[in-house]
């Protein structure tokens, strides 16, 4: 008997590839969407996703099969972003949320459009632009939770913050987004609005 046996044998190459395709590559679109919102441009998003997939494949033997691959990949992606991209990516001017008085859009529209039908007239690009203007901490919470549908716990783990922090960031980010899109809808005449 030898003690030199490695604790975990690497999977044969075919299994490794097959499981990576099945569990990791299926999340390519999600990784790309998150990368786009983090970097703010398509070319950096491409590079960030590619790098994430390469790192993930190299570390694939450390990933426990059948657990949460999406969360695992997004953690790798976010670390790569922070370490290598954040300094050089340029985002549109972000706003200081503390400087803005948040208001509940529902209170403004409950007479005119309580079901929020005016939202339906707002196109994708306008929504993405509004998200891009959020401060990074709020933007990543919205993207992981509202766009990719991760639980508070998964978002907290990826961002390395307590669950309470995720909740408060989400609350403020959603209110801010609503307010921004409401102002836009008023400006475009989709809704009369009561703040003018």
């Amino acid at each position, binding site marked *: 008997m030898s003690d030199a046996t490695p604790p975990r044998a690497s999977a044969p190459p075919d299994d490794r*590839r097959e499981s*990576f395709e099945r569990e990791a*590559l299926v999340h*390519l*679109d999600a*990784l*790309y*969407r998150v990368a*786009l919102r983090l970097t703010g441009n*398509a070319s950096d998003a*491409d590079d960030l*996703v*590619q790098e994430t*997939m*390469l790192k993930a*494949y190299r570390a694939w033997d450390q990933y426990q099969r059948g657990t949460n691959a999406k969360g695992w990949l997004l953690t790798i992606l976010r670390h790569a972003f922070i370490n290598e991209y954040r300094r050089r990516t340029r985002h549109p001017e972000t706003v200081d949320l503390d400087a803005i008085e948040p208001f509940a*859009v*529902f209170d403004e*529209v*409950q007479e005119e459009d*309580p*079901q*929020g039908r005016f*939202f*339906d007239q*707002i*196109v*994708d690009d306008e*929504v*993405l632009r509004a*998200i891009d203007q959020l401060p990074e901490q709020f933007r990543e919470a*919205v*993207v992981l*939770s*509202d*766009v990719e*549908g991760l*639980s*508070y716990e998964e978002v907290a783990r990826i961002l390395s913050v307590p669950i309470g922090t995720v*909740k408060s960031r*989400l*609350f403020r980010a*959603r209110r801010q*987004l*609503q307010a921004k899109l409401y102002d836009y809808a008023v400006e475009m005449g989709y809704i009369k609005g009561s703040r003018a």
Partner: protein
Amino acid sequence: MNCREAVDHLYEYLDQELTPEIERAVRQHLVDCQPCLEQFDFEEAFLKFLQARCRSRCAPSELKRRILHELFGE
């Protein structure tokens, strides 16, 4: 549960992050309180709208090709 407490749990309710007990209490409040129900419906519509608008983007097929090539030499 009163309106104030229900609204405090608004997003946790919509995100399905409440304990079953509190979730039941919120749901019961919404049965009894039309104004709160309207507000919850509005917020739910907003979250659905947000997700629908943002999930239309897919990774470019060229990126997928590049990654497969890097990983498996194809």
